């Protein structure tokens, strides 16, 4: 009884540690894993799953991981599975003798080691599939062990407790301090916040400081600032060095497709959002995920294509996780008539192409989509390209209650009449200080004063030789 109690104490401890570490350091990773899973009660789904290697573990994984999308369920289920692996393997090793005496000495420690290594491996992998593979193997071994007689259980000695503690705390430490795991968690947190439209959370996690190490996250911040109305004020406070860092091109990457589907949705280009979600789906074993199906419902609804909304809702109704919400959706859209433009007729020549965001933004205007986010992004592209003449032209089209700081900086740089454009006295003063410092070749002052402004970016590109035009240093200039 005492020996069994020890086993259960270890199991409880393992469960608690795995759950806490998961909840603290992999909560959002689990949510994204849940979004990217798919489990459907359809013939095609089972046919495709059984065509893969390890079909049972895939099936088991997909079934459980679909619930990871619910906050905290991921860490909970992971903890449960890791504990089950421990218990099942321990059950096996308690009954089956190893031909190697050394193995016998490590009884119970081996089960802890196995569950800890599975946990670490699963934490570092894209999906927790390995856990389910090991769970199935452990289950198989435990079933075999059912037919064997229980051995004399080894006593839980102090050294064993110490080794077990070492394994558990070591694994916990490894997961909590692993750079890759933390980085994945931040990405997942930002992705989830973008999906939810929680822009403040995005900006809390993607700061100018954090972007020095992870510039690939900046596009999320720029999208968020489009919503909070800060893009024209804060863009260049981020360490942006190239136009490519403004957007997430990469049509063939999971991250690029995820970002661009949401970006296009928020800008109102629903066809393009659907395009990216189809591209996104190509990265997953079944070609669709719960996330892609739910996004297809969202985007088709915005497009007025209710037939497709019903189709995808019917598919999702075959998923245990989404069944009830999908049924509610089906009821809501019952009999809804599509409101799509006529077929065989082009209302404009507007079209988007692959990996050309500035071109695509112009197309939105041509197609009559007046998205403030798209318009501001277009202005930012012109600044990032150094096309300041075009910037001025585009700037004049829009009405401004208050001109964002970076736009003032760009306008001053091209040499417009500040009073005509209503540029603030503060920006003018700063610009004059910088131009004077530049004329005196006082570069430390220029660097200090221009920090976090469009001028800093512009001068950097000039030095790089990327921009031909720039600050006019001619003393006779109207500036």
């Amino acid at each position: 009884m005492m020996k069994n109690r020890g086993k259960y104490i270890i199991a409880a401890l393992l469960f608690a540690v795995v759950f806490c570490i998961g909840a603290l350091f992999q909560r959002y990773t689990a949510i994204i894993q849940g979004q990217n899973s798919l489990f459907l009660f359809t013939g095609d789904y089972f046919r495709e799953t059984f065509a893969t290697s390890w079909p049972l573990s895939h099936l088991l994984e997909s079934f459980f991981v679909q619930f990871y999308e619910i906050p905290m369920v991921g860490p909970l289920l992971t903890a449960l599975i890791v504990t089950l692996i421990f218990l099942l393997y321990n059950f096996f090793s308690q009954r089956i003798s190893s031909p190697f005496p050394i193995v016998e000495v490590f009884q119970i420690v081996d089960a802890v080691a196995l569950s800890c290594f599975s946990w670490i491996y699963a934490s570092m992998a894209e999906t927790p599939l390995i856990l389910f593979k090991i769970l199935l193997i452990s289950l198989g071994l435990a079933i075999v062990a059912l037919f064997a007689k229980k051995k004399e259980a080894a006593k839980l000695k102090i050294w064993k407790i110490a080794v077990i503690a070492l394994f558990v705390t070591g694994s916990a430490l490894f997961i909590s301090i692993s750079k890759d795991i933390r980085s994945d968690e931040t990405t997942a947190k930002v992705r989830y916040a973008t999906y939810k439209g929680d822009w403040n959370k995005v900006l809390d996690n993607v700061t100018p400081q954090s972007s020095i190490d992870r510039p690939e996250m900046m596009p999320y911040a720029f999208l968020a600032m489009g919503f909070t109305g800060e893009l024209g004020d804060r863009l260049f406070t981020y360490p942006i060095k190239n136009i490519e860092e403004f957007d997430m091109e990469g049509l063939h990457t999971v991250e690029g497709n995820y970002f661009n589907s949401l970006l296009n949705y928020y800008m109102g280009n629903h066809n393009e959002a659907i395009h990216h979600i189809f591209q996104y789906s190509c990265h997953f074993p079944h070609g669709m995920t719960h996330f892609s199906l739910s996004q297809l419902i969202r985007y088709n609804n915005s497009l007025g294509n209710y037939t497709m909304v019903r189709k995808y809702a019917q598919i999702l109704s075959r998923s245990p996780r989404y069944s009830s919400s999908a049924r509610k959706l089906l009821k809501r859209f019952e009999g809804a008539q599509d409101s799509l433009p006529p077929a065989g007729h082009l209302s404009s020549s507007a079209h988007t192409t692959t990996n050309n965001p500035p071109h695509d933004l112009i197309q939105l205007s041509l197609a009559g989509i007046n998205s403030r986010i798209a318009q501001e992004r277009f202005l930012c592209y012109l600044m990032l390209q150094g096309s300041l003449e075009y910037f001025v032209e585009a700037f004049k089209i829009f009405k401004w209650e208050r001109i964002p700081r970076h736009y003032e900086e760009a306008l001053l740089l091209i040499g417009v009449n500040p009073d005509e454009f209503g540029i603030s006295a503060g920006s003018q003063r700063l610009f004059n200080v910088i131009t004077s410092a530049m004329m005196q070749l006082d570069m430390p002052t220029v660097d200090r004063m221009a920090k976090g402004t469009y001028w800093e970016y512009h001068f950097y590109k000039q030095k790089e030789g990327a921009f031909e035009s720039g600050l006019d240093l001619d003393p006779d200039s109207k500036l």
Partner: protein
Amino acid sequence: MRLIKHITGITLIAILLHSCSGAPSERIPNDSYPDIIPDYIGVTIPEKIAKLTFEMTDGSNCRYEMERDGDTLWYTVTSWRKGDKMATLHKPFPVYISADPIDPYIAYRLIEPGYESWHNIVIAQRELASYKESRIVSNRANDMGCVNCHTFDSGNPQRMLFHARGKGGGTVFIDEDQVRIINLAQVGAQRQGTYPAWHPSGRYVVFSSNSTFQCFTVNEFQPIEVYDTASDIILMDLQTDSVMLVPQLSLESRLETFPAWSEDGSTLYFCSAEAIENVANNRGKVHYRLMSARFEDGQFVGEPEELFGDDSCSVSFPRYNDGYVLFTHTAFGTFPIWHGEADLWMYDVESKEAFPAEILNSEKAESYHSWSSNGKWVIFGSRRLDGRYTRVYIAHYKGNGEFDKPFLLPQKNFKHNTLRLKSYNIPEFIKGEVKDYEKAVSKLFK
């Protein structure tokens, strides 16, 4: 044979009960046909076809009784909603059985109706008399590259070809157990093959060689426009494995595509459009004409002839049968499956007139089509169910350019059409079952 059928015609063939439990015992007769999906009311089917399955459009429960009377099946449907005390007994609807035999199998490609990338692609076959679907080859065989444009030598299941793209890719030719791959871009005309057409003699294959691109519309009905910036016709002689460019069908000023042979192989039908600059911007101005060219002794003779088309429409997929060319008619462009307005039309070779095959068409896109080996049935892809996922329809050809009402390829459960996340692409009739070539093709890529 017909006499025997008539004698036994009144015999009850089958009484099939669906969703029997919970059906109210009392039934109120209704003078209208049931509103069922798919619409099988009045369709013509072949003798050997899997059982038609359907459900009520409004989701209510139904059961049906089926009775055969000569060449007609009569379906009597009873429907009710949960909790109803009385059921509705609908007016029986007919399904006509044609005496014309149909090829026993069809082949198609299953692919998600996506954009630039893909994941799983399978070229599959389906036995028409049952629901049995099996693989011919999938893109697991070529490291998840694309497999496309499968075509058979006059429906012969032992002779087929398809393209397998990706590293080490090319055109895979299957002749019984001989499986080989040829990269057409590395032989003769140095052009990649795209749309193929196997000559009735089995010796030649013509391909169009297309430089294909796509652009994406901004919230239009049609999300994608696939277009060619160049396309020519190449001829391959399978006896010598030589490939040559056909000069009169490869003009720089024109785009030639979609080759298809006449029954006797003496004429090649194809489509041709003026090559224009900046196609993405001017995509509404791309109009393909239906053309023909004479073929004698292994070569094309004379100048091609323009048969049909003007600047108000575009022609795709010409397929000749019995003095008519069945083609897809769109407002513009060369990739009709994304064109909601795409319909099937017939061109009468003798009178030189074209007209819509009304009974085959719907509000949504009808696109790829092909004839059965006896020319009595046509199979085509249509997006009429939901506008995006192509499903396969089959129609009986009555002759003189007329068809009977088409029917949706039956599935064990109609819901399969909703739940399947793949489109049926390039449906073709085949005269028998094709072997599973997955392993043989995999070896080509090792």
